[in-house]
């Protein structure tokens, strides 16, 4: 029988340290909606999503009540639209984005991911249509998230796509200039993207997945920080052990919620993604964990080592707790969504270059970074190319979600609101890379990709 102490420990994690289930994400395949007529495709997709996810939000809320743990977001991911809609005869997928947006609103989810293309080796006609549609699609919809996989360890880096990414990011920044270029916050460029990631903006339902699936993302940076407060001054073995034990407990809660959601919805369970994902709420910060480890600020020397320890031990604890740990699983380091990261950037402790180093060992990449609105397209492509190279060579997922905030520059601040938070505009290296980006073509995969 559980003890009073255990009950109190669990409830303190929930009440005081913001332990929550960050998202229950339903993956929905749209491959069976294929149609040469765009409107028919949109109608079929809308109908399938609204039927499959009809009870998703209510089920999430009921489970939250049952276990007394918040289930913050309910979301949907779909098959990359460049694949699902490839039979459509059209030169724009904006109507598809609108159909996804209205399906999301009908069932009450706050984001729907999968307005995506996988172009690591090259672009099909449909991929090109999709990529050209992204800026308008993200500016006329509210809840649609988009991603492009531009590189992988197996295939190398599609530098034509990387070049194009710089252009469309600037385009969507301009189209949403009234709202601090918020469209860019809903778009991410990946290397080695994963098919079962439940977190936005990068979630999509991979083609290797079944028809419907439930993936759950759990979080709790506050819980990890609280437990590290108990071992101040102890050596690294103790730090690692503490992070691991805490990650284990958090993941077990995710597993419980995922199995219950799967049972209630009659949809198979896919994976648990244990990611320490910060929010702008007080005490829900990854940077505060780094400070608790002994850094004055995130970005100080030692930060990369601290992130590496955190990321690795979160994975180790998570793997012990569930057989199906997937997605990203590790520590996210978004700037705008983390109060202590924002402060670190504001006081000059955290630079773009240090962030890039941190992405070599964190779970994803450069995330929610605001830069001056007049940054050249090619510079943005250069930043993306660097991040893709880190992912390709190290066989890990990396990503770039960067916001060139229109009309703002270093010293200003961008306000996105809600979970997306606020971000100080960060300094970008002023030296150019035009000729490098303009070469085009594909960077071949590294030698260690040939493992057969």
């Amino acid at each position, binding site marked *: 029988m559980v003890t*009073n102490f255990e009950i109190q420990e*669990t*409830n303190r994690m929930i009440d005081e340290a913001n332990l929550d289930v960050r998202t229950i994400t339903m993956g929905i395949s749209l491959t069976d909606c294929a149609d040469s007529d765009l409107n028919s495709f949109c109608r079929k997709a809308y109908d399938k999503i609204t039927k499959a996810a009809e009870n998703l939000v209510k089920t999430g809320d009921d489970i939250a009540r049952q*276990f007394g743990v918040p289930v913050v977001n309910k979301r949907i991911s779909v098959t990359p639209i460049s694949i699902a809609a490839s039979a459509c005869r059209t030169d724009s997928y904006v109507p598809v984005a609108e159909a996804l947006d209205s399906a999301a609103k009908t069932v009450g989810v706050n984001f729907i991911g999968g307005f995506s293309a996988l172009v690591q080796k090259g672009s099909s006609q449909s991929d090109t249509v999709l990529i050209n549609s992204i800026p308008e699609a993200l500016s006329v919809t509210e809840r649609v998230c988009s991603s492009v996989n531009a590189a992988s360890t197996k295939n190398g880096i599609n530098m034509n796509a990387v070049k194009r990414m710089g252009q469309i990011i600037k385009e969507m920044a301009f189209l949403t200039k009234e709202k601090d270029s918020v469209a860019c916050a809903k778009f991410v460029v990946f290397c080695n993207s994963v098919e079962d990631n439940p977190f936005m903006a990068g979630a999509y339902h991979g083609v290797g997945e079944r028809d419907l699936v439930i993936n759950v993302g759990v979080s709790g940076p506050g819980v990890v920080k609280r437990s590290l407060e108990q071992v101040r001054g102890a050596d690294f073995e103790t730090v690692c052990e503490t992070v691991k034990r805490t990650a284990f407990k958090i993941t077990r809660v995710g597993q419980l919620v995922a199995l219950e959601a799967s049972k209630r919805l009659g949809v198979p369970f896919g994976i648990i993604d244990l990611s320490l994902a910060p929010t702008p709420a007080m005490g829900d910060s990854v940077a505060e964990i780094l400070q608790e480890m002994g850094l004055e600020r995130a970005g100080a020397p030692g930060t990369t080592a601290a992130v590496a320890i955190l990321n690795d031990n979160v994975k180790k604890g998570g793997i012990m707790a569930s057989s199906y740990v997937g997605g990203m699983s590790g520590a996210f380091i978004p700037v705008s969504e983390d109060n202590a990261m924002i402060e670190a950037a504001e006081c000059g402790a955290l630079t773009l270059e240090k962030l890039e180093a941190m992405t070599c060992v964190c779970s994803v990449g450069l995330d929610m970074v605001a830069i001056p609105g007049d940054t050249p397209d090619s510079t943005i492509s250069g930043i993306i190319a660097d991040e893709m190279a880190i992912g390709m060579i190290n066989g890990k997922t990396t990503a770039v979600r960067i916001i060139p905030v229109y009309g703002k520059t270093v010293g200003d601040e961008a306000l996105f609101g809600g979970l997306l938070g606020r971000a100080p505009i960060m300094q970008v290296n002023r030296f150019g890379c035009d000729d490098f980006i303009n070469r085009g073509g594909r960077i071949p995969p590294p030698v260690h990709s040939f493992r057969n």
Partner: protein
Amino acid sequence: MKGIITVIGKDRVGIIAKVCVYLSDNGANILDISQTIVGGYFNMMMIADLSGAEKKFEELAAELEILGNEIGVVIKLQHEDIFNVMHRI
């Protein structure tokens, strides 16, 4: 199905009575109960068997929360599994 009920708040007359009356009215059998009062603050933990209850778990949890608001304490009903998975391998 077992539920864990925790009550936290400023001590006053009749907290346990109110909770127990509610539970018995709804067919829940109390298996274990423990309480402490520190500095005037009331802290109670109760394990109840809810298999005889007619109402759904979520409904019971919501009604207990309302009852807590009425008497000025925080009452939580949680399925015991959340504690089992977290603290038992």
